[in-house]
């Protein structure tokens, strides 16, 4: 029954003859909806977008593409348009419902058009309405999916950026490097920290590296193991490693968990660690007499 309805659908013809009214009513529908974001979208842009979408819809439907075959080739124009729209809306900060309303709000104008055009043919009206409803639902779902994938892209990009941002290796002094760690340590991050630190040791010839974990919120057995690995690798390269910035709670956790930090030098603050590092590299800092420091 559905196939039959879509095969003989008159929607394309109606769309063509009623284009102006539909666009008008659709715009009214969109701007009147509680999901309309006047702050993010100008009415003029919306009109252009709506017009373009109606055009694409008309073309696809007029080419004889079956309405229940939205996944097919013939609808690619409409779908490309919708993915672009979803992407731009997702980036502009629209919510999923606000984005999907663009398509769903077309239902009302479409239905009233059908009612007007098919007056007196109850059987035909039901068929056409069903066809139109299925089409709009599918396109709406597609919009939401496109929106979702855009957001996922954003999330994964941010994750990557965060990973790069969070592992700087700084030179504190001749022969002394420091790695201020901020955020939770997992194996992927430890790997990056380890690699960047070791590369930096090779390029600077540093003999002491200080790993500061003031910014690490929790230290569990896994994190401690990651830290120990980094220390061991540093030692293999021929440099010493000091772990600093151990907060009282973390010291307690480490002991309660039974983590053995072995012979790793640990200091409460970065300043203490730096002092040790200077001592080891043979530097001495003196305060000038009579000057306030």
């Amino acid at each position, binding site marked *: 029954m559905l196939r039959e309805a879509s095969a003989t659908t008159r929607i394309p013809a109606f769309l063509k003859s009623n284009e102006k009214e539909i666009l008008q009513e659709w715009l009214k529908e969109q701007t009147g909806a509680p999901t309309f974001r006047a702050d993010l979208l100008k009415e003029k842009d919306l009109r252009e977008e709506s017009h373009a979408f109606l055009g694409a819809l008309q073309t696809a439907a007029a080419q004889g593409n079956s309405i229940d075959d939205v996944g097919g080739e013939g609808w690619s124009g409409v779908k490309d348009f919708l993915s672009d729209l979803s992407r731009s809306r997702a980036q502009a900060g629209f919510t999923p419902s606000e984005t999907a309303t663009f398509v769903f709000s077309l239902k009302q104008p479409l239905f009233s058009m059908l009612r007007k055009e098919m007056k007196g043919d109850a059987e035909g009206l039901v068929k056409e309405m069903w066809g139109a409803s299925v089409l709009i639902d599918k396109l709406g779902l597609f919009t939401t999916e496109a929106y979702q994938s855009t957001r996922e892209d954003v999330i994964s990009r941010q994750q990557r950026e965060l990973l790069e941002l969070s592992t700087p290796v700084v030179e504190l002094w001749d022969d002394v490097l420091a790695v201020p760690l901020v955020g939770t340590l997992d194996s992927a991050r430890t790997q990056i920290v380890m690699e960047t630190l070791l590369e930096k040791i090779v390029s600077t010839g540093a003999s002491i590296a200080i790993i500061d974990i003031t910014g690490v919120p929790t230290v569990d057995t896994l994190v401690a193991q990651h830290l120990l690995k980094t220390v061991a690798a540093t030692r*293999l390269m021929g440099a010493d490693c000091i772990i600093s910035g151990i907060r009282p709670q973390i010291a307690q956790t480490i002991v309660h968990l039974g983590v053995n930090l072995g012979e790793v030098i640990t200091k409460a603050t970065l300043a203490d660690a730096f002092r040790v590092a200077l001592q080891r590299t043979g530097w001495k800092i003196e305060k000038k007499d009579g000057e306030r420091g």
Partner: protein
Amino acid sequence: MERIPILKMGSFLLVTIQVDMHDQLALTLQDDLTAKISKERSRGVLIDISALDVVDSFIGRMIANISAMARVLDAQTVVVGMQPSVAITLVELGLPLEGVHTALNVEKGMALLHRRLDEVRA
């Protein structure tokens, strides 16, 4: 047969590994080095592995073994110039080479050897 040369510098021995290490080569080096230490009565061994970019657990253990053997023969061992990737691999393999002394390059390794010897003598 392929061999890794062992150079004598005063009371130290210098080993530079510049070819891909395979198991037989490692065993030969172990033999040669222990023989040379006892013959020359060397006090220190410096192994430069900066050209080595692939290690497996066998080579890792061999490095630890050589160091332990040298210690038994009263010589200090310093491994220098380990590549970052090698260091990470060894740690991931669970071979942190606990008893082995390390240095970043030959120069620092030599300084470390001298320091170690002074400590031992004192």
